[in-house]
């Protein structure tokens, strides 16, 4: 009792004896901060506990869904932030910059990913009567024999390799835009536009109407140029190229704009020096511009590959993977496993294996790229 009353008296004495109180006040703030965090944590755990009891049926008291947890979490996070400032002062204020993003990401990623690993080990088909059943690594074993999955992975190799082509075109366009031209702003806006369009809309605009076999303008043009049977989505390789062309159309502007930003940030003297030394256009590009742009290039290539590995909406909406899985990406294939076969456990297992492959691939890429960029700089 006595202890508590003493603590309470501290803020009162704060104003009266300014100098000596400061130290004690900090101590009390520390305690107040700790108490706040403790209280908030207890409250959060209490809500969680009640809800778990309610869901498992041990207790009738509780809420109809887990919404309260959703509210309790930010409240706890805010309390934790205030607690940080109270206990750690300036350093707590600094931590406050980072904490919101950390709490958000942890809440939204960590739990679903762990839960996803759990689902991946289940034999769970929504259309069968029996519910989820634990099956360990059965899904992964099934995957090894799934030719469609390996086929989709093979397609991903093609799509990913095609990023280099997109990059080459985008670099060309960026160089064109940074050359001395009239109406530069107009061209820049126009070249950027495809990036703004939704892939779903593009899949109709280009895939289903422009490239339409009977009277799409692209088919008409192809006939005029001497291709008798302009079926863009009939043969496997043609379909793959068509999907890739559409994806390139949408994504080249992004690569271009980053490269353009890099070109604009490049010191003008370097290129002038190359000119002075008598280098022609190709030489000054290959020996000056390209090496200077290499770090930017590698960054944009890696980001582009990351996005390419997620490619799904175009394929789902234009070909649905056909003909015979020739255009399937891993994402679109898993989408069909979910939607058409309702095979939840298997689909998630495929996704998890895919994630592992991506992590390995990107780790290797990042290591390699670090070596290259260091060599240049």
């Amino acid at each position, binding site marked *: 009792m006595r202890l508590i009353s003493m603590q309470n008296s501290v803020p009162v004495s704060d104003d009266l004896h300014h100098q000596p109180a400061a130290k004690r006040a900090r101590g009390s703030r520390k305690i107040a901060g700790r108490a706040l965090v403790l209280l908030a944590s207890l409250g959060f755990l209490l809500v969680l506990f009640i809800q778990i009891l309610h869901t498992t049926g041990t207790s009738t008291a509780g809420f109809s*869904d*887990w919404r309260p947890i959703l509210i309790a979490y930010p409240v706890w996070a805010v309390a934790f932030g205030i607690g940080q400032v109270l206990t750690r002062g300036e350093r707590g204020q*600094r931590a*406050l910059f980072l904490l919101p*993003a*950390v709490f*958000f*990401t942890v809440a*939204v*990623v960590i*739990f*679903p*990913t762990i839960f*996803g690993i759990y*689902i991946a080990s289940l034999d769970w088909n929504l259309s069968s009567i029996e519910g989820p059943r634990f099956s360990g690594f059965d899904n992964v074993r099934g995957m090894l024999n799934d030719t469609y999955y390996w086929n989709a992975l093979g397609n991903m190799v093609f799509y990913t390799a095609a990023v280099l082509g997109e990059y080459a075109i985008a670099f*060309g366009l960026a160089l*064109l835009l940074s050359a001395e*031209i009239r109406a530069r*702003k107009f061209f*820049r*806006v*126009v*070249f*950027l*536009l*495809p*990036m*703004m*369009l*939704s*892939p*779903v*809309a593009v*899949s*109709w*605009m*280009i895939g289903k*109407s*422009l490239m339409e076999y009977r*009277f799409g303008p692209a088919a008409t043009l192809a006939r005029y140029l001497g291709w008798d049977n302009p079926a863009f989505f009939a043969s496997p390789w043609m379909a793959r190229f068509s999907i890739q062309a559409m994806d390139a159309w949408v994504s080249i502007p992004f690569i271009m*704009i980053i490269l353009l*930003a890099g070109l*604009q*940030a*490049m010191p003008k003297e370097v290129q002038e020096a190359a000119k*002075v030394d*008598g280098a022609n256009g190709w030489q000054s590009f290959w020996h000056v511009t390209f090496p200077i742009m290499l770090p930017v290039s590698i960054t944009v290539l890696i980001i582009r590959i990351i996005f390419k*590995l997620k490619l*799904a909406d175009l394929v789902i*909406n234009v070909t649905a993977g056909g003909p015979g899985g020739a255009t399937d990406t891993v*994402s679109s294939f*898993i989408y069909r496993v*979910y939607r058409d076969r309702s095979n939840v456990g298997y*689909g998630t297992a495929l*996704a*998890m294996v895919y*994630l592992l492959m*991506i*992590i390995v691939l*990107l780790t290797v890429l990042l290591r390699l790229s670090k070596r290259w960029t260091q060599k240049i700089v």
Partner: protein
Amino acid sequence: MTRSTLALKPVQRRPAAPRAKRTLSRVLIYAALLFWTIICLFPIYWTVTTSFKSAVDVTQAHLVPWVDFQPDWKGWRSLGLSPDTLFGTSTARSEFANRFVNSIITSVGASLLALILGSLAAYGLSRFRYKFAWMRNDDILFFFMSQLILPPVVLALPFLVLYKALALLDTRLGLVLLYTLTVLPIVIWIMRDQFNAIPIELDEAAFVDGLSTWGAFLRIILPLAVPGMMAAFILSLVLCWNEYFFAALLTSTDAKTLPVMVASQTGSQGINWWSMAALSTAAIAPLVLVGIFLERYIVSGLTTGAGK
């Protein structure tokens, strides 16, 4: 001295390079520019004009309005957006308006949330040294950036189950949270470059003037970072507005967004080209306008970071 003699060199050489060659390269540059302009604009032009065509004009590939074909509000009438149907009641229009509002709320909401969270984290990472267990600044940055590689398929199903429990299925809030996650790494990436480009002496001057850490950030640094924030916001907006995968899986009636509506229309075979074209045009129009009017912010916002 040496510099001036070097600079003279090309002047002496220039006559050797014939004028014709320069003209040729000009012509080639403009030809390439025009070619790519056509590639960029033709699909948009085709979609917009098709929304005014009747069946005959579509099948006969008529291209130029008033010359080839007589434009008609056909596609827009089916959406309830043509002049004669605009003030009547239309179920198609109210559905479209609902999806449109959903798309705006989810994409703007997610972009704003990501911008706030991302700017704060980026500023912290660019100015202070953190230590959390074994993680230093670089590790924390990598933790954020690594969220970028998560393919939507990995998160799709866990989120479906999670959102069901949280009663977030088919709500805009659910989509906002998920979209924020997908664009947060990009915002942090752009904003960190932006803050790194602002000299740290400005912060120190602010401290000397008696501002606190947060005061210096909010009143001195943040106003200087507006170009980067615009670029990050627009890029997030583009990604969120166009997102299809999660929206298709996590919404059914209330929170459906425009891409899902467009996709569900393309799926049915007997759909009219003109109404499909009108729908696509309406779906891409907002971002096309954003692209035309805010394009300079994207480039200028990215330029500060790309230099390194």
